[in-house]
């Protein structure tokens, strides 16, 4: 029997360990990289799948899907302009309502709130984002709509005399663009508020102290030194809220009235792209109809992609420390 030296055995063991480590590292690299690549693969897959399915409709009706207001399934006409209009208007109304409130809350939490109140109020506002869309819709149908129909809309139209403008005319059914705007505002608020709160808190003390040293009042300090510094982050937050409002389906479907018509009045029912798809998908009669709905989905996909990309880029800029 040949004597095997202890050193030789030790060398072998070390080589084996190094070898195992190398294999282990390799597998680890491959696995984690593969997982990471799933993310861009998913985005590309979504784009390809939706556009491929939408292609027959785009080929048949072309740009009229965006420009025409005539959605006539039997006749093969698919003009989704009322739905696009509805998506944009309801989201804008939502932002008009939500932005002042969200920024107000963010300023309150970062500047004025007593320490003990900060956590609970922040928590409650953030919790708004956790409520499922269908629960908002349920609450919207049975609480918000009657409230609008019986109190708010007559108040706006008659007491405030806003009925003289074209935006608040028409019968107050309840389901309306206004209802959708209000629900979307509640849903977008936590997103705008949480991003705004973060960027406001990230404004360096030196900015605030400098303003105060120059004789500014507390409010002037916020208005002139803090908010402008956080401006691009806040805009990013607003766009995040916008992105959320644009794509919201269930809550809007339940309160917007589902009528394919363009109207200037906020009291009239409308339609959004997402609710159009959700409502008509189950009853789609022909392949062309399905393809047209996918086309609407493709338009929604592109719009929200752009809005979200810009929003994330803005927020990213601020978090990297660049002054707006």
């Amino acid at each position, binding site marked *: 029997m040949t004597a095997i030296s202890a050193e030789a055995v030790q060398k072998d063991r070390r080589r084996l360990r190094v070898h195992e480590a190398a294999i282990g*590292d390799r597998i*680890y690299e491959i*696995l*984690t990289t593969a*997982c*990471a690549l*799933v*993310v*861009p693969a*998913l*985005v590309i*897959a*979504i784009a390809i*799948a*939706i556009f*491929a399915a939408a292609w027959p409709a785009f080929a048949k009706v072309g740009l009229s899907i965006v420009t025409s207001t005539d959605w006539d399934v039997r006749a093969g006409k698919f003009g989704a302009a009322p739905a696009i209009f509805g998506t944009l208007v309801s989201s804008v109304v939502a932002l008009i309502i939500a932005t002042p*409130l*969200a920024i*107000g809350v963010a300023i*309150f939490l970062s*500047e*004025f709130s007593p320490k003990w109140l900060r*956590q609970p*109020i922040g928590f*409650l*506002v*953030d919790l*708004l984002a*956790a*409520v*499922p*869309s*269908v*629960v*908002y*819709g*349920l609450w919207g149908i*049975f609480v918000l709509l009657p409230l609008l129909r019986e109190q708010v809309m007559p108040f706006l139209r008659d007491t405030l005399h806003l009925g003289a403008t074209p935006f608040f005319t028409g019968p107050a059914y309840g389901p309306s663009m206004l209802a959708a705007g209000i629900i979307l505002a509640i849903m977008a608020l936590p997103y705008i*508020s949480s991003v705004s709160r973060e960027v406001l808190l990230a404004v360096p003390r030196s900015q605030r102290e400098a303003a105060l040293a120059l004789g500014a009042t507390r*409010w002037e300090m916020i208005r002139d030194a803090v908010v402008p510094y956080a401006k691009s982050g806040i805009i990013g937050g607003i766009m*995040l809220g916008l992105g959320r409002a644009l794509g*919201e*389906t*269930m809550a809007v479907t*339940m309160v917007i009235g589902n009528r394919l018509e363009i109207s200037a009045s906020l009291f009239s029912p409308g339609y959004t792209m*997402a609710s159009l*798809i*959700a409502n008509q*998908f189950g009853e789609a009669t022909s392949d062309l109809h399905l393809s047209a*709905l*996918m086309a609407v*989905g493709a338009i*929604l*996909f592109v719009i*929200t*992609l752009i809005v*979200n*990309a810009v929003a*994330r*880029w803005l927020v990213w800029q601020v978090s990297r420390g660049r002054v707006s």
Partner: protein
Amino acid sequence: MIGLTYLAAVLATLPLLLILWHLLKKGASSLSLAFFTNMPKPVGEVGGGMANAIVGTLIMIGLACAIGLPIGIGAGIYLSEKRSTPLAQSVRFLADVLNGLPSIVMGIFAWEILVRPAGHFSALAGGTALGAMMIPLVTRTSEEMLRVVPVSLREAALALGYPRWRTSLSVVVRTALAGIATGALVAVARIAGETAPLLFTAIGNQFWSTALREPIAALPLQIFAYAISPYDEWHAQAWAGALVLISMVLLISLAARLVTRSKFGAPVD
């Protein structure tokens, strides 16, 4: 002006409190043990429940986690290690963009690649759609949690002779496990309430079904169907279902916060 911010704070917290109050008021009266154990009954019959919907939601959450968690955590590990390479930056950016995509877009995507070729709706498709929604969320939260782990820990392990892969898994990931679990719970809370993707994939089922290749009921779908129906009994059931759903979501969110609180001693917002 300062008063206006106080007003904003009040107005911002009002909707949540209103919704919770209405849910409790209208939902609690229809809630009973029968609600959790009975099947949906036709209108007019007393004692319907949402047992199949609750179970369906749980099954699809399980499927979604099986798909979303491994891929999401793997991607999170990748991003936390390769911090600023171009690929890592694009993955991070795209994950954030995916997070903001409407759930209905995920739904029609899942329909196009899973339901249409198969020719039928299925729980599998629903779970996959929800899992795909979980991936970007889990990726970003895992990455954030892994970044918090001090580099010295990794360096110490490497100095002691641990191979890279073992350092990452046994030392770094293990330290951040509570945070990763929080991220996972937050993602689960988010997808538990999603309805739109399920409209195109699992579509709902009035009968008891746990088969993965069959349509399956889900709590949000059932709430939606009952809410838009013209029947008062079903409206009451919808409120009860909504109460159950939001309790589930809130409990999971609270659990997520508690996990990090006990680990780090302070809540991670």
